[in-house]
């Protein structure tokens, strides 16, 4: 049987429809498994704290009246549903987020956005001036800001920003109207400071072409902050009052909680700059020059350990909290928390003022003495009631996915941003096989290790491969029965092995609906629409038309 182009097109479009419609329910079941794991996960897998922080001066930390040392705390919240596309879409279009040109919308009259067409920032706000008679004069102003200056009318002489990132920490209070906003343009490779008071722009030296630094965020450094909480607490000093009140969960019992953006505990001299490599640098706010390294994003544990440092794209969420005291606002170091791609582990690091790592911890099981056991990235899959069943279920579900796409997930495991992996339909960057693909222990390339890693990945895919072979065998048998040519059968075999269940369903949906007849020669079913029997090759047994010897004669 020769295939028509029509049939090939029908198979391809049916295959795509089946692939899409099958991927969606599989996604939801995987989502359910992950959501259950996230909700059932024991509390100790979700938080990590370090006490003392190691960043406070000794006289504060070792005060004899200290009841509790300074402490930094990071907590992971439920991590599946915030990554659904609809929520992500809504959040990413909010002011200051990745897909929004709006950088400020604090009130109906105070807003700012970046106009991609003109390359200018447009700031509109209510400006308050104190008149000589001490009266306040308020007027609405609108400024157009380019790399070359500020103007009340859009003007080409202002120049063009191309891909700016803005430090939004200043927008926390209305003081920015009289202060300055710092931004970095990825394409112009320079830092800029917008001075609202003096209405001018300060520009830094351009980063050299061979400079490896590629800043991607400045000021408040975080990603998916809705699933990760990070704060630190001042030491709690004994007082007669809190000696009397001993309520265990009373917030008063601990020191004040200091979160990101708290203006009282923000270093006044430096701004944090996050590099695409995960390094964090200090930027001098006055000179707009780099003032040294501040640390780097922690690398949370993964199921298959990776030696390489985490980059922002590798992490599902991170938060960086610079540390300063209210008294002197001097930069003393930073706290960095990060969640791994799968959302199963959290790491917390403390860097001192010189950017040296002084403390770090990971989430995981704890024994009765509070010592760490198995890391949560592994423990979450097997170590609490119900987890093994969900993990095995999830693994089997992943094996219903087309083997060719699983293989593609293995090879492209590292190329997707971590959040997008949680809403992936076709390539699954968070599947077990993709996790194996990211196993970077073999980075000091030894060919044997790459082969072993690939074989391990194939082992993870083995249920999928066995299923695909089984289905291909059934397809092959049926295709032979129905009379497909050898070449067509071969294509179907290959297609079913590559696409597994999708290939099989596509075959069933596009299989010619023909009623077979019995071959007069071999006695097996044969197609009625072909010249020869596809089994024995015999032609139709057409009886020779012999005219009868008798005739009907009139009269």
């Amino acid at each position, binding site marked *: 049987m020769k295939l028509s182009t029509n049939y090939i097109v029908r198979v391809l479009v049916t295959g795509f429809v089946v692939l899409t419609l099958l991927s969606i329910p599989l996604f939801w079941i995987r989502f359910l498994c992950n959501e259950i794991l996230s909700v059932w996960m024991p509390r100790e897998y979700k938080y990590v704290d370090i006490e003392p922080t190691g960043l406070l001066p000794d006289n504060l930390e070792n005060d004899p009246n200290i009841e509790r040392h300074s402490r930094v705390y990071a907590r992971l919240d439920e991590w599946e549903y915030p990554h659904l596309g609809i929520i992500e879409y809504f959040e990413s279009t909010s002011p200051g987020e990745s897909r929004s040109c709006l950088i400020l919308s604090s009130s109906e009259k105070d807003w700012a*956005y970046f106009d991609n067409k003109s390359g200018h920032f447009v700031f509109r706000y209510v400006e308050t001036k104190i008149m000589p008679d001490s009266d306040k004069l308020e007027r609405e102003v609108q400024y157009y800001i380019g790399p070359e200056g500020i103007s009340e009318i859009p003007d080409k002489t202002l120049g063009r920003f191309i891909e700016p990132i803005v430090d939004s920490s200043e927008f926390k209070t209305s003081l920015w109207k009289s202060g300055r906003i710092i931004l970095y343009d990825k394409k112009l490779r320079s830092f800029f400071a917008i001075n609202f008071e003096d209405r001018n722009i300060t520009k830094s030296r351009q980063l050299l072409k061979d400079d490896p630094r590629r800043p991607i965020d400045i000021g408040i450094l975080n990603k998916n902050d809705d699933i990760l909480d990070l704060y630190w607490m001042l030491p709690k000093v004994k007082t007669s009052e809190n000696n009397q009140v001993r309520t265990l969960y009373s917030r008063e019992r601990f020191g004040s909680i200091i979160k990101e953006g708290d203006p009282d505990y923000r270093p006044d001299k430096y701004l944090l700059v996050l590099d695409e490599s995960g390094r964090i640098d200090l930027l001098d706010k006055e000179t707009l020059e780099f003032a040294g390294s501040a640390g780097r994003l922690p690398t949370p544990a993964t199921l298959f350990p990776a030696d390489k440092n985490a980059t922002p794209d590798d992490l599902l969420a991170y938060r960086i909290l610079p540390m300063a005291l209210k008294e002197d606002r001097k930069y003393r170091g930073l706290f960095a928390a990060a969640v791994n791609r799968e959302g199963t582990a959290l790491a917390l690091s403390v860097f001192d003022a010189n950017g040296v790592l002084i403390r770090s911890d990971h989430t995981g099981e704890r024994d009765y003495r509070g010592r760490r056991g198995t890391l949560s990235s592994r423990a979450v899959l097997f170590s609490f009631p119900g987890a093994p069943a969900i993990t095995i279920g999830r693994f089997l579900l992943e094996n219903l996915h087309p083997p060719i796409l699983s293989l593609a997930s293995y090879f492209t495991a590292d190329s997707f941003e971590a959040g997008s992996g949680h809403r992936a339909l076709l390539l699954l960057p968070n599947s077990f096989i993709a996790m194996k693909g990211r196993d970077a222990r073999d980075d000091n390339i030894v060919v044997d290790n790459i082969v072993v890693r690939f074989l391990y990945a194939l082992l993870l895919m083995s249920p999928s491969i066995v299923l695909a072979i089984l289905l291909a065998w059934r397809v092959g048998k049926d295709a032979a029965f129905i009379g497909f040519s050898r070449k067509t059968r071969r294509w179907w075999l290959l297609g079913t092995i590559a696409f597994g269940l999708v290939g099989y369903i596509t075959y069933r949906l596009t299989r010619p609906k023909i009623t077979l007849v019995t071959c007069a020669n071999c006695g097996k079913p044969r197609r009625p629409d072909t010249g020869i029997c596809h089994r024995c090759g015999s032609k139709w047994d057409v009886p020779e038309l012999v005219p009868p010897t008798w005739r009907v004669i009139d009269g």
Partner: protein
Amino acid sequence: MLTLIKREIHDHPLFFIGSVILSTVLIGLSIATLKGHYWIELTAFDSPAGTIVSTILVFVFFGMGAVQMDTDRTRKISAFISILSVSRNRILLAKIIAGLLAILIALVPLAVTVTILLRIHIPPIPVFHVMVLEIFSGTFLITLACYFIGLQAGWNSGRLPPVIIGLILTCILLTLIIIKGFMPEIMIILTLFTVASLIRTWHLFMSTPL
């Protein structure tokens, strides 16, 4: 061709009247929402509103596709028209154009109204206009895809099972919006899906004896 399209509209007036009513109600709701809230609160409405509108439209137009084909099959309309000098391609094309027209009647006035209201009520910040464009194109594509599923479900013999399967597939496809949001990737998936569904519908219609 125009006669064929007119006949389709004449045969299914309820869907066209329904589109007009739906569009009017949604326009009223969007005016009330835009007037009742400050513009900085508006992003909170965009995605939920987009999802609700998509859900309503998807089921209405799945129904339209299924009814169009079911009426044709049971009343042998195509079989009758084929006797005249009209090809089956043109009959199907007329059906699809009629369906497309109904979808556009429901969506375009709403999109135009929302765009005008945004221009009047909020500062000229491009992000809102981009959002409107993305939400309406996503809604249009998913409605069209489900309309094609309806056409295929309605053309299959046996009234209930194919329609139930079609409805289940529609529900499955609808959740794609929740998975992907209105981001550019959903446009690619839905465009490919719509083209694939169109080809499948065309093949189904052309290959079945009337």
